[in-house]
């Protein structure tokens, strides 16, 4: 694994810093997403219940909003920021070939095609793909919580209608 990462990075570059930043960003994104989901979900869930005889009981006919309406793209906003930060690594990787020497001359003299592009783009691209996968899994986990923690009778007919709206981060920005 270490060798593969070295082969996909500028020679001599310390990938640890990139790894650490990525992991920290992922943890913060997951924490933010969890808090965001819980805050929204608890508010939506509270409306479903009423106190009867000192006990919380579901209101008659009360239905929770669909999953996509409950969480909105704010939940996974952190993952998009993480992806942008990872994309920014490519600039540092390219700049590496001009720092302290002009190693870009050596890279451009290599007989293999696309070696510079490979070492600049490949690993960030893999990490972005990994972040996207984690984002999907995280959303799946939150969807499972939504499904299991909501009383069956309070779920809408199509709880995951327009679920892809959750990922439409650009909509919430605009």
């Amino acid at each position, binding site marked *: 694994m270490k060798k593969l990462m070295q082969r996909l990075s*500028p*020679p*001599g*570059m*310390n990938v640890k810093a990139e790894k650490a930043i990525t992991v920290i960003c992922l943890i913060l994104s997951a924490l933010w997403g969890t808090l965001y989901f819980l805050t929204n979900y608890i508010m939506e869930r509270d409306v479903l219940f009423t106190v009867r005889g000192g006990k919380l009981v579901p209101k008659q006919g009360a239905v929770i909003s669909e999953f996509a309406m409950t969480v909105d793209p704010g939940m996974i906003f952190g993952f998009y920021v993480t992806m942008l930060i990872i994309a920014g690594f490519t600039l540092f990787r390219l700049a590496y070939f001009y*720092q*302290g*020497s*002009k*190693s*870009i*001359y*050596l890279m*451009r*003299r*290599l*007989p*293999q*095609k696309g*070696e510079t592009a490979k070492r600049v783009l490949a690993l960030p691209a893999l990490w972005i793909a990994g972040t996207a996968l984690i984002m999907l899994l995280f959303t799946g986990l939150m969807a499972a919580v939504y499904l299991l923690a909501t009383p069956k009778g309070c779920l809408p007919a199509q709880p995951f209608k327009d679920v892809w709206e959750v990922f439409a981060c650009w909509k919430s920005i605009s």
Partner: protein
Amino acid sequence: MLEINIVKKSYINKPALSDVKLSFPRGEIVGLFGENGAGKTTLMKCALGLLTYKGNVTLDGAPITKKNIEKLSFATGEHSFFPELTGAGHRDFYKEHFPAFSDKRFQGLTEFFGLPLHRSLRALSTGQKNQFEVIFALSQGADYILMDEPFTGNDVFNREDFYKVLLGILEPHETVILSTHLIEEVADFIGRAVLIRAGRIVGDVKTTELEDDGKKLIDYVKETYMYQPDRVSRALEQITGEDAL
């Protein structure tokens, strides 16, 4: 044969090379001389395809592409190694990318200069960095080794050693094109001198021809450059208002 055919290069309308035509057969050690800004570095970078230019550069009749670029190596005073990588790391990198890399030559030269293989090059002295830069170029397995001011920062003994080692290790098919200001120092090691001025080739001579004429290389360079020996005294007179010397 490395051929540079009518190569032109300009930097924002300022000509850097004008109709340069040169050819370098295998087995030569060529000195490329010229004042600062004459176009030596630009010429080398054009030959290597590191700069865009008009005209064409061919190697054994074929344009320089990824298919034959490994036949050219480059050592530059700007350095082209990876500062954070060790000497051993560079050896592995070169071996991976240049199939003709000579491990034997690399090992011999690093041992001769007592260079550390397991420290990142960033941590080494300027002289040691230059030595590594040149060693990588010599070990790549190229037929044409282009060196652009590779010894800036090395002491004179070190440079002398290098020239001697260079003469000793070069194979008959290898050509070295050495750009330097140290004309007198390399005079005994080169077989041909190419002079460039304001982007034009103004002189191209074999050192044996100079020997036959009983001329020293430095005198040939001064003559070609129309060097005015009295320019220093004239300048001093102008500055101080007194008769200099």
